[in-house]
């Protein structure tokens, strides 16, 4: 067990013991539920835990009583705005995010939907690791130029590609300043696991020849309130994912923080802000690094 005893991990554990309900799949209402249950199980020490009429009116827990809990308001996709925060101070360039992403999406060889660069803005500041997913820009240069509307922006902030419509003109690749888009130059190698899935724009697989692909913020996971594969795989806990509407981001270790507060207090910035693309991926400066800087 890591030395970071985060609440979330413990909550998860407690919930597993108490009810066995908090599997990853039931994540949407998990946190509050777990909190309530955990409280309930220690009710011998904590005699009363209750809400009252002035708040929600629901009895959420009392000594020995069965609990009900307030739903954590499952939000429709169009009420969300997903956002990612990458703490460059924590990224040690291990590229496990890339590996996990490629495994999860069966990413064809040669593509790195989240790619870790060794950036060096100037000689004085030195080099730092720079993971680059798709920025999911709000002012999408790519979707703007797509001649057939195959790539599009969803209200929840995610830019998707319909590979059943894409004509493979690669104009979106030309338009993307972040080089986040990839083209299937040949028929990608398939696995049976991949082919077993029915194609959906939220999966982007089974992959096919002659169309454009990119990072899509794992919408299928986000739908369940889970963080994307890259964030889950980041052992440095550098990648935060969350919802701007709920004003929350969380990382693999379960450090759940207010998004606006995090950006404000740590001087968050966006890559190539001056291009006006309004990315949905934010970076925290590589300050007080917890890893040795790249040699470059």
């Amino acid at each position, binding site marked *: *067990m890591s*030395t*970071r*005893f*985060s*609440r979330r991990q413990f*909550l998860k554990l*407690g919930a597993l013991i108490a009810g066995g309900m908090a599997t990853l799949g039931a*994540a949407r209402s998990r*946190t*509050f539920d777990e*909190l309530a249950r*955990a*409280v309930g*199980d*220690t009710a011998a*020490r*904590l*005699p*009363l*835990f*209750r*809400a*009252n009429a002035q*708040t929600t009116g*629901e009895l959420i827990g009392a000594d020995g009583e069965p609990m009900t809990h*307030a739903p*954590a*308001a499952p939000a429709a*996709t169009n*009420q969300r*705005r997903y956002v990612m925060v990458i703490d460059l101070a924590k990224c040690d360039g291990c590229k496990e995010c890339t590996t996990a992403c490629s495994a999860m999406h069966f990413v064809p060889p040669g593509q790195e939907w989240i790619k870790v660069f060794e950036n060096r803005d100037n000689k004085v500041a030195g080099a730092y690791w720079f993971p680059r997913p798709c920025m999911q820009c*709000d*002012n*999408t240069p790519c*979707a703007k130029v797509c001649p057939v*509307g*195959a790539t*599009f*922006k969803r*209200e929840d*902030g995610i830019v998707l590609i319909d590979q059943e419509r894409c004509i493979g003109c690669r104009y979106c690749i030309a338009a993307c300043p972040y080089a986040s888009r990839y083209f299937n130059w040949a028929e990608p190698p398939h696995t049976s696991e991949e082919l077993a899935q029915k*194609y*959906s*724009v*939220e999966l982007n697989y089974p992959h096919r020849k002659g169309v454009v692909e990119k990072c899509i913020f794992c*919408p299928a996971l986000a*739908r369940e*309130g889970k963080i994307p594969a890259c964030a889950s795989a980041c052992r440095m806990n550098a990648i935060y*994912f*969350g*919802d701007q*509407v*709920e*004003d*929350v981001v*969380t990382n693999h270790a379960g450090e*759940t923080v207010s998004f606006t*507060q995090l950006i404000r207090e740590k001087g968050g910035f966006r890559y190539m802000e001056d291009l006006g693309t*309004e990315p949905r991926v934010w970076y925290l400066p590589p300050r007080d690094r917890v890893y040795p800087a790249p040699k470059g």
Partner: protein
Amino acid sequence: MRWMIVVFLMALVILSVQPARADDPPGAKLFATYCAACHGAAGKGGAAPAIGSDAYLTANDNAAIAQATGDGVVAKGMPAWSKSKGGALTDDQIADIVAYLRALAQTTAPGPAVAPTPAQPARSSANAEYAQTRMTMTQSPNADGEMVLVATLEKFDGSPVSGMVVAFSRATTFGTVDLGTAKTDSRGNATLVMREQPERARYITATFKGAKTLGSSAAMLALEKPAVAISAGDLNTAGVRLSIDEEPLLAPEGSLITPNPPLLPTLLFGLVVLGVWSTYGYVVSQVVGIWKSGRDHQRENVLAPKARSA
């Protein structure tokens, strides 16, 4: 299984800010003797977790640390040190170690429930009787448009509990966000100003973890509509609007998901293209005229001899 309960206790802990008691550390020697071998000098970590770290000490209250020390974490190979468990340390010695850790890290101790550490001064409980508490929470925007949360802590007899730390948190899809803590005043009110203005209503929880003679309590509140609502045009500057179903989505056949082009430029563009093509049409009509004229010419030539003969 008892370490699980430790875990539960840890799970309850919510950050709070409270100066530590920098007592003389009689625990220092005990720590060096019993703990440092695994946990490292000054708890900096070694074979076992760095229990001297801020991360650990802010995430765990004294009771939890004491219990973990006493009961051990058998699954991880940590022995139980409590005499009652067959270990070497008395409860007081364990308390000393905990106090040493606190002093060492200059960190804060969350409100203790049962820990035999220097106790939280329970000013409100002049009588040493144990009392259950209850909490209510209200919300109101202040002049700056920020939401002010007031949690009122009182005993069941209605008397306010003052000087206690109430922790506020917010439940979201992606976990619980700590909003901070506040102490109750003489009327039992703990006040917290929410600087963030999340755009969607969500649940705020205020928790009082209890004290030596006070039971714990909590209250929950659904945050009212924030001052700043989501405006549709704000969703993204490209103006893309797409509502999707809860099911994974396939693009509708033959339809546009991306926004319609702006009306005026499209009209102008269409007008120009239409103009060019209608002019083409006119030129084609001239070609048709040439063809018709040629046909008439031919007919005249064919008919003329006949007319002459007739």
